[in-house]
């Protein structure tokens, strides 16, 4: 099962490598990873997605919690949550394709953020599934480059991950 783990950790040198190192050391997998400082510059928020059953996830969260730099963490997939990922995608856009890609972008509520006579660069935000769907609908043949930010997430409602 796919999980989204969100971690509040000290914004300190080496903190990220401890988190990432833990995954390789214990044989866990990281599918996506995103990290940046929060409104409090001494704290970073790290979100990662991984795949595992309950037992494995319990071990992952326990071991992450043991890291001295990890202040708090939550498995967002445990409850209602909002998941977003940003994708920048560069596609061939010439001739009849141009209009079709524009339409498709609109349907996915993306934006064309850079244009040349033969290329569109599109920005699109949504769940990982939505981005996958967009990539599929554009078709591999047109795609020149894909950049994805990795998943970020936050719990719905009043639940807050803070210290």
């Amino acid at each position, binding site marked *: 099962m796919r999980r989204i783990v969100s971690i509040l950790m*000290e914004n300190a*040198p080496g903190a990220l490598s401890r988190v990432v190192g833990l995954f390789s050391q214990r044989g866990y997998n990281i599918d996506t990873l995103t990290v940046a400082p929060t409104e409090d510059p001494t704290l970073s928020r790290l979100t990662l997605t991984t795949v595992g059953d309950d037992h494995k996830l319990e*071990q992952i969260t326990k071991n992450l919690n043991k890291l001295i730099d990890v*202040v708090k963490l939550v498995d967002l997939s445990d409850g209602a949550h909002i998941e977003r990922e940003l994708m920048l995608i560069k596609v061939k856009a010439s001739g009849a394709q141009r209009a079709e890609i524009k339409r498709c972008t609109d349907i996915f509520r993306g934006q064309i953020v850079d244009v040349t006579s033969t290329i569109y660069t599109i920005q699109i935000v949504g769940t990982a599934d939505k981005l996958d769907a967009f990539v599929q609908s554009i078709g591999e043949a047109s795609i020149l480059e894909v950049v994805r930010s990795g998943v970020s997430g936050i719990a719905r409602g009043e639940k807050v991950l803070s210290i």
Partner: protein
Amino acid sequence: MLSGGDMLIRALRDEGVECVFGYPGGAALHIYDAIFRQKDVKHILVRHEQAAAHAADGYSRATGKVGTLLVTSGPGATNTITGIATAHMDSIPMVVLSAQVVSDKIGEDAFQETDMVGISRPIVKHSFLVSDPSEIPSIIKKAYYIASTGRPGPVVVDIPKDHTDPSRVFEYQYPESVKMRSYVPAGRGHAGQIKKAVQLLLGAKRPVIYSGGGVIQGDSSELLTELAKKLNFPVTNTLMGLGAYPGTDRQFLGMLGMHGTFEANTAMHHADVILAIGARFDDRVTNTPSKFCPHAKIIHVDIDPASISKTVSADVPIVGAVESVLKDMLSLVNSAEQGTDQEAIGDWWAQIDEWRQRHGLYHANRFDTSGERIKPQEVVQVLHEVTKGDAYICSDVGQHQMFAAQYYLFDKPRRWINSGGLGTMGFGLPAAMGVQIADRDACVVCITGEGSIQMCIQELSTLTQYNLPVKIICLNNQALGMVRQWQDMQYDSRYSESLYEDSLPDFEKLMEAYGHVGITVTQRDDLRSKMEECFAMKDRVVFMNVMVDRSEHVYPMLVAPNGSMRDMLLSKTERT
């Protein structure tokens, strides 16, 4: 106003550090100069940095204090890695001070540069890279706090040379306390869970207390003993937990696991309630986890939540410090209206005694004593008698380690010092050195083999320098015994690279070269008198080279793979 180097040593003093094991080098020279100019913190110069780590480790295991070592950058730092990993696997509190190249050279492949924080990351509890000299006091405070609290472990502090420069001075103040928002060690266990656990214990018909190194680390042997006595429950200890419960007490079943006793493993298999305390269901204990103790409800007490339900699911998990949980359990047991089911417990003891009659701690024929050759088990038994069971036994790794664990019955905690988790050959001698530093008057023994001893043998010189009269008992079977045993059992006795041919040194001459005493024992009849002779030389390092039966195997041995805890080989010909 103090320099970074002076602040470091002053901080160690203020932390109560009495001695540091170490080895100087370029990047550490400012620190070593600071050591020279003071008298509070004693430095022990080892012969190899690995030994500094093992010595600090042994010091910690014997005293409960944090062990400290100081090394230079690059090779000095990398040489400690095996020692740090050893301490990490056994949850030993340790602070590793490693010098680093000057900060503006980091990353430039400077002379003797290595990324110590990176290279040690998977085997430390935490690490610090000092980025400004003014941080040194607070980092040292945090390092000792982290190393010694919660589930203890090693902490690395990497210090670039320029941050110890004597020409830059700072105001020094050692923090009185430390509080970290991201680190809150577990304290008391959950009251409801403890209540549930006590109800299970009181209702148990076939209980076993299975205790591990956590009881020793948590200084809770007396509480454990009190609880076990109060309940009249049998107790088994893990390899790391030996001494937590008195080894010569009738309620003690011996060690459990791969080379555990017949009665301990069999009792575990048939138990209906298991109180696992400060133990982690290591693969050397459980055998096949899916077949582990099929009838038992498991209460698991551990300070580390990640240890609970890792390999074996706990029915009643309790996260907390062993000491406080045991206290809470005791007070509940003492105030319980109804005690244990004494009839059932009586039947259970009758069953255990029946097992004991077949094989085990009190069985006369635990090993074959009929031959003329010296059996390694007998050496340990004689050692136990001659030292009155009261020595510090520091072990290396291999058959001799298992024989020591099985036959030296430890009545006190912190007397059995061995590398349980990592299984580090070469650990014994430097660890013994650390123990002897901690207690100059103690009887400190290194039990070893002719394989292990050669992995850190250079420390014989350190013993000379600091007059550390360690007694080295070498069970010499002229082979890597445990490897050979497995080759006998699984590879039709094809002894691939486990024999030394005639290459072993003349240990007596070697000892003489270092200024020590060497004794060789080849005759079984001489064993006791030579052993007494060895321990009569209180002020000397004595190396007893005991030529033992090389064909001996360690038994019992759990049958693997796919065996349960009751499936054991009891000798070369008997199986349960």
